[in-house]
């Protein structure tokens, strides 16, 4: 029943001791606290139904049901605390795990997820997402970027230039995320920066999701002629989501400076043995 938390001088992330899932993020500098439930889910890929024979494939995202299945309702959790880093290791299943990490001095939470090989022996193609659930009153709106330049406001079940008849409540609200997606209630902002382009959405107020991996059994009939299916055991993917909790006033500066650091990350080169230490501006 004791509290599981990782923290540094700026942030604290608390985990539910019963489920092992992330349950709260606190920004101590700005005195902000947000209950957040984060976990992994999967949508069942459609292989065609009475409404349409369109299958989910590389070009098409079309889930069978609108509610995703949880990969697991709880995670085995293990905390590691050193002077430089505090980590929570979460194991959701044999094919899904995550490290939630806070480095000393860091103002964001790092979620390093490892997903795959996605099992498909049950005959279902799967599209795996990471979902953050909060109580933020977002009024059906969320924001995604275009190559880190223009950030566009997205409104659920709405298009700004025509009257939309929404026939795909999940896929019809998914948008490209090149570097970041965020939700806000006007006071607080939850921003997630990605390390690669992904699909993302906010299907309910206060919720935010990003697709991290998919493995499908049927071709979508858009010209490739092969299902999005690796031969052998399948691919496993590792990536990072950087999570920022800020006041709306501070948020833009935080996510823009952090995104610069991620996109233009330092490059490492190693050399064996000794040599002169060097510091070259």
């Amino acid at each position, binding site marked *: 029943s004791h509290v599981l938390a990782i923290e540094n001088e700026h942030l604290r992330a608390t985990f539910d001791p019963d489920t092992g899932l992330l349950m709260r993020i606190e920004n101590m500098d700005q005195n902000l606290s947000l209950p957040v439930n984060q976990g992994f889910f999967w949508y069942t890929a459609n292989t065609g139904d009475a409404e349409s024979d369109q299958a989910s*494939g*590389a*070009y098409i995202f079309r889930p069978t049901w609108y509610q995703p299945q949880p990969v697991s309702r709880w995670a085995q959790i*293990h905390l*590691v605390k*050193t*002077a*430089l*880093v505090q*980590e929570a*290791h979460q*194991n959701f299943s*044999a094919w899904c*795990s995550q*490290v939630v990490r806070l*480095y*000393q*001095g*860091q103002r964001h939470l790092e979620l390093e997820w*490892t997903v795959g090989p996605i099992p498909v022996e049950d005959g279902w193609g799967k599209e795996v997402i990471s979902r953050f659930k909060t109580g933020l009153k977002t009024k059906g709106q969320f924001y995604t970027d275009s190559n880190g330049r223009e950030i566009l406001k997205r409104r659920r079940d709405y298009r700004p230039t025509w009257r939309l008849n929404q026939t795909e409540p999940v896929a019809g609200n998914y948008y490209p995320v090149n570097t970041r997606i965020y939700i806000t209630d006007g006071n607080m902002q939850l921003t997630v920066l990605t390390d690669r382009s992904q699909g993302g959405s906010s299907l309910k107020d206060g919720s935010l999701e990003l697709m991290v991996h998919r493995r*499908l059994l049927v071709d979508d009939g858009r010209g*490739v*002629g*092969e299902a*999005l299916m690796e*031969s052998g055991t399948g691919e496993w993917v*590792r990536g990072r989501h950087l999570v920022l909790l800020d006041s709306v006033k501070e948020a833009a500066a935080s996510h823009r400076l952090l995104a*610069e*650091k991620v996109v*233009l*990350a*330092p*490059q*490492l*080169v*190693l*050399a*064996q*043995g*000794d*040599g*002169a*230490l*060097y*510091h*070259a*501006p």
Partner: protein
Amino acid sequence: VGDSTPLKEAMAVLQHHDAVTGTSRQHVANDYARQLAVGWGPCEVLLSNALARLSGSKQNFSFCRELNISICPLSRKSARFQVTIYNPLGRKVDWIVRLPVSQGIFLVKDPNGKTVPSNVVMLPSSYSKEYQWELLFSASMPALGFSIYSVARMTGRNLQAHKMQSSSPKSN
């Protein structure tokens, strides 16, 4: 001879064909991967040449292509190695470096020869047992420049020597 043209051309082919996962047949995807790999080789040489020229010393540089999955033979097996960190941003950056190592204690020195705090952390059990340990240290890089850090594995003997050295009075 270093050259970035083959990688530029490979990237151009991929971008032209929207080489996103699943949108090509497997043998075509394999060919995209082949073109990228072929292009990357001469790019590494180009980068090595540039770093050697800037630092004024030629080194046999190694690039960790699988660092994202915690695999780097050089850092895992070497008793001593140098880490050159290039910062492409136009402002000073502080960064936590993570390198796969085998279990042990390490001494990390910054460009001024000062020891910097480091930790060795264990990776979760779901990862490969062979690559369980990572060395962490905080590095600082100047704007559009690079810093070279040194890492040495401490054995019983040099660990004792280092402890004696750090506990001796400063005037010595």
